[in-house]
């Protein structure tokens, strides 16, 4: 690809220092992310899967400039962001926006929906108040809510609707990149389908680059073109989605795939015991 990658990670690592637990020992270090290198092309739907604590959220926070890597470089649209102080990242806030996991806690319960959606605009001083109002109304309609939702508070909406509000907020500054951290993990299946459809639609409609994090392999499979499998802070495998699901290279990936209960397989007679046996087998293969 000759194009500049939208996001480019070069040997990115992030360490956390835990509190000292023994007087005599040095405080333990957690390598939440280590040596992650990847390029994400414009328009790509890039997925990251991994189990709890594998460092997915930490990586995302660094990509969004909410945290700084201990080592390595992060470039967004060719511009390094890993060393910039927050106040110099205004442009990034406009180019890149976030959708979070928890539809309860990602919206300030004490703000009106209109103000929530307008927040990125206010934060970056985009438009006049009237223009912002118009944009908010437009966005709300776009994500399938009525414009008068702007006057209400988040608790007056259901989980799925709240996730729509989150998406509307993310779209407000007209970003090029949408970063989603487990956006459907907390939702019921019926609503999950609605939100996944919406994401699909806006990524297409707005020509976005999508970085999508989940621990659910089937969701990632449904959404993404390319997937990175993360374990203990590392990318163990990066591959186009279908290839990964059909022909996983890394044993850990195979282990993950083996462990996912699948409806069709279950109906075909695969019991929990078999599922466990396959998982164990994949684990043993790895070690």
């Amino acid at each position, binding site marked *: 690809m000759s194009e500049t990658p939208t996001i480019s990670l070069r040997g990115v690592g992030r360490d956390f220092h835990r509190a000292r637990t023994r007087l005599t020992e040095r405080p333990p270090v957690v390598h939440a992310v280590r040596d992650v290198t990847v390029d994400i092309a414009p328009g790509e739907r890039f997925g990251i899967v991994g189990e709890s604590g594998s460092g997915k959220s930490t990586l995302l*926070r660094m990509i969004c400039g*909410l945290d700084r890597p201990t080592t390595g470089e992060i470039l967004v649209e060719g511009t390094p962001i890993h060393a910039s102080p927050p106040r110099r*990242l205004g442009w990034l806030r406009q180019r*890149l926006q976030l959708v979070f996991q928890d539809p309860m*806690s990602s919206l*300030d319960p004490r703000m009106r929906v209109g103000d929530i959606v307008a927040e990125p605009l206010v*934060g970056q001083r985009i438009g006049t108040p009237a223009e912002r109002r118009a944009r908010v109304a437009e966005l709300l309609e776009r994500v399938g809510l009525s414009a008068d939702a702007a006057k209400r508070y988040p608790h007056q909406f259901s989980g799925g609707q709240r996730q729509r509000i989150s998406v509307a907020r993310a779209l407000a500054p007209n970003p090029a990149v949408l970063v989603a951290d487990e956006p459907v993990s907390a939702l019921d299946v019926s609503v999950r389908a609605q939100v996944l459809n919406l994401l699909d639609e806006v990524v297409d409609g707005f020509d976005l680059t999508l970085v999508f994090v989940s621990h659910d392999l089937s969701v990632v499979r449904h959404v993404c073109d390319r997937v990175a499998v993360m374990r203990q802070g590392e990318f163990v495998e990066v591959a186009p989605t279908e290839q990964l699901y059909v022909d996983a290279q890394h044993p850990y990936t195979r282990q993950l795939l083996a462990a996912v209960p699948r409806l069709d397989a279950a109906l075909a007679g695969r019991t929990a015991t078999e599922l466990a046996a396959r998982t164990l087998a994949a684990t043993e293969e790895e070690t």
Partner: protein
Amino acid sequence: MGRRRLNASLVIGGAIVAVIVGLALISYVWTPHPPMKVLVTEAYQTPNGEFWLGTDKFRRDVFTQIVVGSRTTLYVGLVAVGVAAVVGVPVGILAAMSPGWLGQLVMRGNDILLAFPALLLAIMFAAIYGGSTRVAMIAIGIATIPSFARITRSGALQVMGTEYVAAARAAGRSPLAIARRHVLPNVAGLIIVQASVSFAIAILAEAALAYLGLGTPTGQASWGRMLYEAQSTLRAAPHLALIPGAAIALAVLGFNLFGDGLRDYLDPKLEGR
């Protein structure tokens, strides 16, 4: 959040607080007798038609004193809580929003201040500036700062951990804007509850100081002072002690109930408790 139900504590506490505030306000335009005027009639009258709660040794109307004294009570509470909140809340938010040594330092300082209870500070202040209502309430206020700072900090830490704050940062809001738009509104409930409870504590502290002779000086209506003055005639005229005593207890009860009720009202977790 769901629907919120008024609870008994809130209603009863609110009613008591409203009555006290009402009395204080009315006392500015009307009192049954001239406020604090001595020698209006005979001393030590028991409650009667003209002097609803009797008279004291200075031949003052007790009811008038109670009414006017409610101002002192509210005044003490307001200033003490005001001082505590104005300092404690920003300190708490600052401590929560600065993760490094600054936050630690602020909280350690706070802990040290915690080692000076209200009464100790008040005695120390009274030693310097003499006993007066103002000194008492400022001392109480300063001693209350740590509890505000702590509660604000713990609330703010929770808010800072939420995804909407991360979203606001990703949206490019400055720390100040985040503190104002997100943190403060979301810890306001906690602070109001704390204020109500601190109010009650301030009233008690003022009464204790008045009892020690370090509180409100003579010539100003104050329940604590009335109680202090009534002591020497406890057996001859017990109502003179019981009435302000009951007023103090009622006010404290009111603010405590109000704070408790408010906490339940604002906390969805406690729904239906």
